[in-house]
């Protein structure tokens, strides 16, 4: 009993305290939510804080990224990759020299299917459908794009390619919202379907796949009272469809 009180209890306490201190977004311990170390996994990165969020020269690659700040979000020199990226700031959102990129890789949840030639996808979500007359609810594909207010969706909805073939991935979803303004400088905001024409090696590898289709371009929403920008450093905002690089092959 004495051993527990004098040795183990302080150890347990220190471990618990350390965990709290290490949380970069805990307002009791810091006034800034700083993310400057690499986060790469297949899980969701979702949190909401009243602090300013600063993403500084790092890589974030997850299934979905959903960050919300009651203050500001500043992203500098970083790469954010996911199926869905939602960034919401109550004051301003600033993006410098960074890449925010999604593709519709879904590994779970709404929209997932393992059926090869029939898939799920609202506009910009990328999937596969054969003829548009066959459309049923929620079953639109790369040839069947629908304009729809995806920003009104549940933020936890997943989306993306309905097929299992990675070269048909759709563009995913990017939502950037700030109450006051969003600042852009020399960045890329891309939600393009697969494959990209730049990826010639990928094209060569899948050239003999039958019924191949490029994935649908994604959905990008940029919403704020004002958009500010560096006039000499434009930002690419892209939601292109994926290329078809196979051959006719019944």
């Amino acid at each position, binding site marked *: 009993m004495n051993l527990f009180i004098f040795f183990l209890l302080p150890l347990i306490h220190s471990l618990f305290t350390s965990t709290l201190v290490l949380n970069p977004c805990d307002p009791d311990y810091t006034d800034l939510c700083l993310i400057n170390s690499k986060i790469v996994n297949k899980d969701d990165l979702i949190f909401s804080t009243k602090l300013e969020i600063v993403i500084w020269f790092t890589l974030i690659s997850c299934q979905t990224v959903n960050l919300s700040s009651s203050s500001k979000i500043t992203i500098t020199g970083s790469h954010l990759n996911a199926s869905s990226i939602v960034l919401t700031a109550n004051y301003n959102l600033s993006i410098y020299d960074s890449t925010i990129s999604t593709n519709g890789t879904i590994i779970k949840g709404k929209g997932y299917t393992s059926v090869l030639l029939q898939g799920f996808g609202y506009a*910009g979500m990328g999937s596969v459908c054969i003829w548009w007359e066959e459309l049923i609810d929620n079953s639109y594909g*790369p040839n069947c*794009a*629908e304009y*729809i207010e995806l920003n009104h969706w549940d933020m936890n909805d997943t989306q993306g390619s309905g097929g299992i073939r990675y070269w048909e991935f759709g563009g995913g979803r990017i939502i950037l919202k700030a109450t006051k303004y969003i600042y852009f400088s020399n960045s890329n905001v891309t939600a393009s379907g697969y494959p990209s024409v730049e990826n010639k090696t990928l094209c060569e590898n899948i050239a003999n796949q039958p019924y191949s289709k*490029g994935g649908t371009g994604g959905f990008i929403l940029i919403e704020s009272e004002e958009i500010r920008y560096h006039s000499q450093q*434009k930002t690419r905002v892209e*939601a292109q*469809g994926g290329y078809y690089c196979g051959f006719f092959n*019944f």
Partner: protein
Amino acid sequence: MGWGGSGGKINIIANNADEAIENAFMISVNGGKNLTINEEFCSNGATGTLCITQLGRKRLYVNGSFSYTQSPTILSPYQLNAIDDIYIINNALSSFHIYNLNEKSSIVYQGKNLHIENSDFEDFVHSADKVFFNVSFNMINISNS
């Protein structure tokens, strides 16, 4: 057979959206190209759409869709209701549909302005009954450069 993927959707909502599109962004919603030589059975993807909302007025651009008829940009009536101006540019007509989810609906959508630029208006007239369900436009503006 195969197709390039359709372009996606980009929504820009800001009081200075026009200025930002001109000066801040390089925007692309192109459909994916078919890179093969077998054009008969393979097609480019349809161009996506750009939606701009500035000072409470919403405009939808359907621009230069490629020719494949299975690649429509589909607009359902309740989505149409939120849009004030529709721009169909560079022969996007064949790929633009308003898809009535309930064909028995007698709702008439009014107060929309339709702008057709550099497109084949003859083709539009022939297909108008099928394309637009119960929609009457305030104004149709046609311009070809």
